[in-house]
């Protein structure tokens, strides 16, 4: 597919159902793997567990291969080159925060999710995870107001500073807080480049080309190329908070349409996700 996919209203629901299913599948995987984490497990092992769990359930292609970050790597402490994102032999210890991040493609639908937790009680991690709720609200509200993405990015930044935290999604390639995801053609082979599925990269590259001509970008960044109102499509949004060696994020799909009705113009693909449930239980 790729390109400027303004999904026709009729097909929208079936289309979204596909995305919702794979996003749920990914979060189920995250919860299942998180429940199996114990002291001594390495990041590589955690990543492999995610991969195996999803492969067993029919996932053959990836937007990107699963990541796992433990300890101060959840806040990307000292990250300089993108290779540092890949899982290492860092072992999980009691009380350590962790993040699982995976982007499976299932039946052509892509999900990209992030799941934060800690092995046992970790008050700082719990605080950060709770603070993310305000960002989820802020992003949705400002996207509905059709504010330029760059300004929303800066508002998220300001909220993080007020909260006393640091913006850690700035460490991602291009400093993105979100990127577009799309349907991917199912192929027999699914080669990958630096952990990213080539089909998905192709889609992103196509978007970038179209966007370049039309004045928008599939990457939501702090830079000038994101100085445009939200573009219709599916955005995997991933605000990432860091505070002195502890990081927390969520990642899920925000649906943006060209509807004039604010409620319809943007909404989270699914509100029944682990972090959202935790917030509603907490209040």
């Amino acid at each position, binding site marked *: 597919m790729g390109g400027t996919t303004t999904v026709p209203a009729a097909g929208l629901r079936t289309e979204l159902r596909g995305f919702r299913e794979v996003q749920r599948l990914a979060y189920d995987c995250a919860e299942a793997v998180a429940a199996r984490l114990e002291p001594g497990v390495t990041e590589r092992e955690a990543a492999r567990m995610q991969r195996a769990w999803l492969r067993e359930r029919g996932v053959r292609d990836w937007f990107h291969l699963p990541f796992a970050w433990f300890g101060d790597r959840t806040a990307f402490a000292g990250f300089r080159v993108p290779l540092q994102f890949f899982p290492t032999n860092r072992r999980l210890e009691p009380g350590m925060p962790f993040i699982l991040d995976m982007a499976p493609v299932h039946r052509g639908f892509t999900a990209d999710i992030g799941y934060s937790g800690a092995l046992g009680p970790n008050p700082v991690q719990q605080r950060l995870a709770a603070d993310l709720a305000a960002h989820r609200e802020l992003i949705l509200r400002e996207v509905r107001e059709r504010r330029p993405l760059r300004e929303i990015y800066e508002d998220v930044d300001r909220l993080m500073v007020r909260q006393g935290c640091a913006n850690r999604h700035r460490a991602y390639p291009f400093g993105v807080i979100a990127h577009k995801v799309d349907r991917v053609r199912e192929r027999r082979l699914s080669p990958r480049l630096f952990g990213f599925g080539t089909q998905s990269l192709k889609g992103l590259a196509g978007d970038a080309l179209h966007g370049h001509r039309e004045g928008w970008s599939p990457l939501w960044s702090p830079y000038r190329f994101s100085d445009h109102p939200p573009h219709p499509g599916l955005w995997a949004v991933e605000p990432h908070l860091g*505070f*002195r060696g502890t990081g927390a994020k969520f990642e899920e799909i925000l649906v943006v349409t060209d509807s004039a009705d604010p409620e319809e113009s943007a909404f989270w693909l699914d509100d029944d996700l682990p972090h959202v449930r935790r917030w509603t239980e907490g209040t």
Partner: protein
Amino acid sequence: MTVPDGVRERWVRTGGVELCVAELGDPRRPTVVLVHGYPDSKEVWSEVAARLADAFHVVLYDVRGHGRSTAPSPLRGGFTLEKLTDDFLAVADAVSPDRPVHLVGHDWGSVQSWEFVTVKRTEGRIASFTSMSGPSLDHFGHWINKRLRRPTPRRVGQLLGQGAKSWYVYLLHTPVLPELAWRGPLGRRWPGILERVEKVPGGDYPTSSLPSDAAHGAWLYRDNVRPRLRRPREDAYAHAPVQLVTPLGDAFLSERLYDGLELWVPHLTRRTLPAKHWVPRTRPDRLADWITEFVTATEDGRSGTAANGKHADRFGGQLVLVTGAGNGIGRATAFAFAEAGARVVAVDRDAEAAARTAELSRLIGAPDAWAEAVDVSDEQAMEKLAARVAAEYGVVDVLVNNAGIGLSGSFFDTTPEDWKKVLDVNLWGVIHGCRLFGRQMAERGQGGHIVNTASAAAFQPSRALPAYGTSKAAVLMLSECLRAELADQGIGVTAICPGLVNTNITSTAHFVGMDAEEEKRRQQRTARLYGARNYPPEKVADAVLEAVVHNRAVVPVTPEARGAHLMSRFAPRVLRRLARVNPPL
């Protein structure tokens, strides 16, 4: 002895001597035994004991031959560590027969307590040990041997350093002379020497028994030092958790003596204190605090303390007040102190931001943290704050006057109101802080530190920052003058001079001589410029802690600030040329 009412005295008979034992506080509480050093008697502990008596059963005794305890006869051979261990066990059995005691030793009291805590026969009788200014002679012996066996230049330097500090030990080994000196002129002059050189406050310490304490106590050295240093015990492992308090200004003991102590002590908590040798007299508040924390932790079954950030040895339990703690450098500084285990008072005019700082501080290691919503330029509010802090949290150990606002634009566009506003916060805020909290520190007389946030603009002139630069230059000079005045009282003053640091001072700064829209545009561009420079406030916070630890006077932070500071001394004309450049905003 200046101890509160309710001191109970008893005599314990052991090994041919009678020991005078004093007890304070409720005997049902954990027992803390305080052992004095040389030349001292148990009265050296009076200030600390009084502070501990509310929470603990405090026991002090005069070591044999000191104070009101009797001396062994003959003196030679009567002061061996074995006999001192007998004495301790006799006292412990008398005051706390069924529960192990918490041991605290200073100077020779610590030397003998090391023996108590490392010999087999006291196992189960000691719950914890707080050591100050007195190493184990066995550990010391091994320390010397290790350095003699492989004398690298550094090790030789350490040996010579400690060798020079031990001059009095050699003198005490000469026969008769020390006794004559102590019973003669030295004994008479000693209180004056302590007050002048060691800054020990006068009053009823030392006691009148000093000459005979000092004369008898010489045998502590003669009976133990040579045999133990020649043949140190191989099994001197501590069987209880140890808290090591190291005064950094100790004239008699190098802090290097405790390198590698972890080999001998499985559960070691390190503390450092910027003070001289007689800490029980000069820093009773801090000691009482650390002893209380350590004893309580041990009683609760924890070993050591929660905070393990950088400089936790120095700031653990201290009270730190930071103004402008709602964001930027102030908030980062509060967090850095919190990680080091300090108690934090976060002051900001934005109540919500201050509360947030306090909340996060508690999460990362501060035993306690409070938020106070105060505008530092408001004299009365600051006075109320000072009174409240003193009454509720205690005397501030480290004060960080950090709150400040930005103001940029031509001198002629700066109105008197603009001037007043910037001086009120940036200068008067600092003056109020120093005046109120500095006075509390000085009156307590137990040291402290004041950090004032100046700026690189204090020595780098700029046509764009006449008012801001003036206010910060004033803060720098105020800090220097105050440093001179407070030096004698053990209170350090530091001016921190950051350059371009990524905080939101840029988006709240006032730009004069333009309309609101242009001002907003400038604020945004400055914020992006500072963001691109991206020097994090956390690094400034680290510099603040370093500056306090090393008692630095002026600390430029960021390369551009260091460069400007150097140039202000060696090439001021270059700075003047730079000052004429209009910043490209």
